[in-house]
């Protein structure tokens, strides 16, 4: 039996080394950094205990950043799931050209997020952007709007892009959920003379619940972690008025005049804890187990 254990280490060794060196080590380094003080060039200057956490709570920007993060995650995930329910229903039907539509939907998923974000900076541009040109020529807007410069519109503009890039993954998860519903369920409903909407509400939605839960929790984690959209679209605005916890942390650590590694690390630890909570919630919702049946690559 002891031989078997060494054998397992041999086969799992490369994976364990990677995870240990690139996930665990930085996680420990993060906690360590949150308890220390660093010079502006990043040199360790000794321990400060929980001082960074106390300072984090005193940051004037923190309440705004927390609210932004909650709005960003909740609204992007909410709108994405509602739209994706419709898209999945459409793509689950058989019609000429469906394969082409499915390929089109892949584009925002496969494209680099930073490139899509830059594209939307251009589309939202006050003078030269396509959005203002379109909306003013259709007389939806009397005059152009500075989408990424006005406090009132920045978050909405970022959320629209967040939804746009989250739709493909969510739609595909819900499509897989729809595909797993056996057809004879619908036969029975048709015999009973149920209307389409009643069938959808009483049959499809409840049967889709597991896929919906997966889509919501995984999207919440992805959107919370999402960096390029907020980083790029909010680039012009000074201060932290439109930042989320992730971009706020990054600015504290690397960009603003603060360059405060300890403070950023303290916020990083909070972020990691929040994600861990979400991961545990996810594992509860999918009732994860390590049996072979639970792992299927064939969607």
């Amino acid at each position, binding site marked *: 039996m002891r031989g078997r254990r060494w054998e397992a280490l041999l086969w799992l060794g490369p994976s364990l080394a990677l995870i240990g060196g690139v996930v665990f080590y*930085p996680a420990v380094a993060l906690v360590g950094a949150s308890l220390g003080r660093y010079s502006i060039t990043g040199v360790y200057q000794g321990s400060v205990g929980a001082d960074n956490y106390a300072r984090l709570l005193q940051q004037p920007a923190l309440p705004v950043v927390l609210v932004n993060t909650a709005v960003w995650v909740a609204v992007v995930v909410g709108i994405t799931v509602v739209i994706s329910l419709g898209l999945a229903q459409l793509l689950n039907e058989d019609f000429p050209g469906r394969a082409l539509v499915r390929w089109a*939907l892949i584009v925002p998923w496969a494209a680099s*997020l*930073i490139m899509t974000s830059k594209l939307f900076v251009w589309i939202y541009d006050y003078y030269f952007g396509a959005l203002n040109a379109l909306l003013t020529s259709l007389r939806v807007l009397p005059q152009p709007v500075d989408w990424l410069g006005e406090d009132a519109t920045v978050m909405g503009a970022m959320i629209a892009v967040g939804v746009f890039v989250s739709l493909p993954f969510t739609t595909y998860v819900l499509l897989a959920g729809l595909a797993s519903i056996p057809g004879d369920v619908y036969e029975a409903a048709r015999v009973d003379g149920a209307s389409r909407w009643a069938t959808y509400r009483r049959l499809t939605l409840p049967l889709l619940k597991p896929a919906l839960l997966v889509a919501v929790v995984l999207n919440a984690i992805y959107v919370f972690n999402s960096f390029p959209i907020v980083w790029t679209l909010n680039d012009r605005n000074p201060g932290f008025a439109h930042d989320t916890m992730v971009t706020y942390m990054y600015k504290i650590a690397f960009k603003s005049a603060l360059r405060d590694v300890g403070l950023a690390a303290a916020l990083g630890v909070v972020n990691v804890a929040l994600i861990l909570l979400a991961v545990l919630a996810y594992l509860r919702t999918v009732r994860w187990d390590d049996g072979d049946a639970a792992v299927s690559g064939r969607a």
Partner: protein
Amino acid sequence: MRRTALTAAGGLLASAVLAPYVVMLLTALKPDAELRTTPPRLLPVAWRPGNFLAVLADPGFADWLRVSLVVAAASTAIVVLAAAPAAYYTARHRFVGRTAFLFVVLVTQMFSPTALVVGLYREAFDLDLVNTYAALILTNAAFNLAFAIWILRAFFASIPREIEEAAAVDGCGRAGTLVRVVLPLSLPGLVTAVIFAFIAAWNEYIIALTLMTAPERKPLTVGITSYVTAYVQHWNHLFAASVLAIVPVVVLFAVIERHLVGGLTAGSVK
């Protein structure tokens, strides 16, 4: 009638999804002077396909492209080399620590490097790995490992044991069986794992932004943003470079579309 309505709705959806990328392509084809016209025109007056050649001839672009290719290819190779034995062993054997191992793998899949970026930077700083290929390659490999393990494990588990036993009788060791029998039979899974790992590394941004500060060490995602700064606004070159970077990955992504959801949701959608 119903099919026509569905096709119309599908066409509308495809147009809405692709419209921003059409703006990207058309902007990439405009001369500098046409970037700043009010009101903006959708189509170029003078078409400039030469913008693509200009980007390809730019030594900066060549550097970023080389870094992206090296990092994506090397991290993909590491992913496969590390994931294949782990996926095979967990698919075929029950052992102490198996559940714990798979749990840790699942957690890493959901942990994007974003949350750990300050810790990753501390590690690279302490080990003197800032601006090295090794740091970027290993980070990408570690965070793309989980998907490859899930996908490969599912394919390995579906191969009948009898085939492997026959190979063992023919004198293949277990490593030999994996390389000569199991992997070839799992080719679709292997292709999916390779394409996914390559694209994820190709598109990675935040770690490259943080660790690669030397201009000639930046990958495409970070490098091309220098086409548009506070001082220069070459939107046409930015988007020509973006189109060149996006088109191949969209094609590759379409190839593995069928297997993506299963790998990303770790089998929870059945």
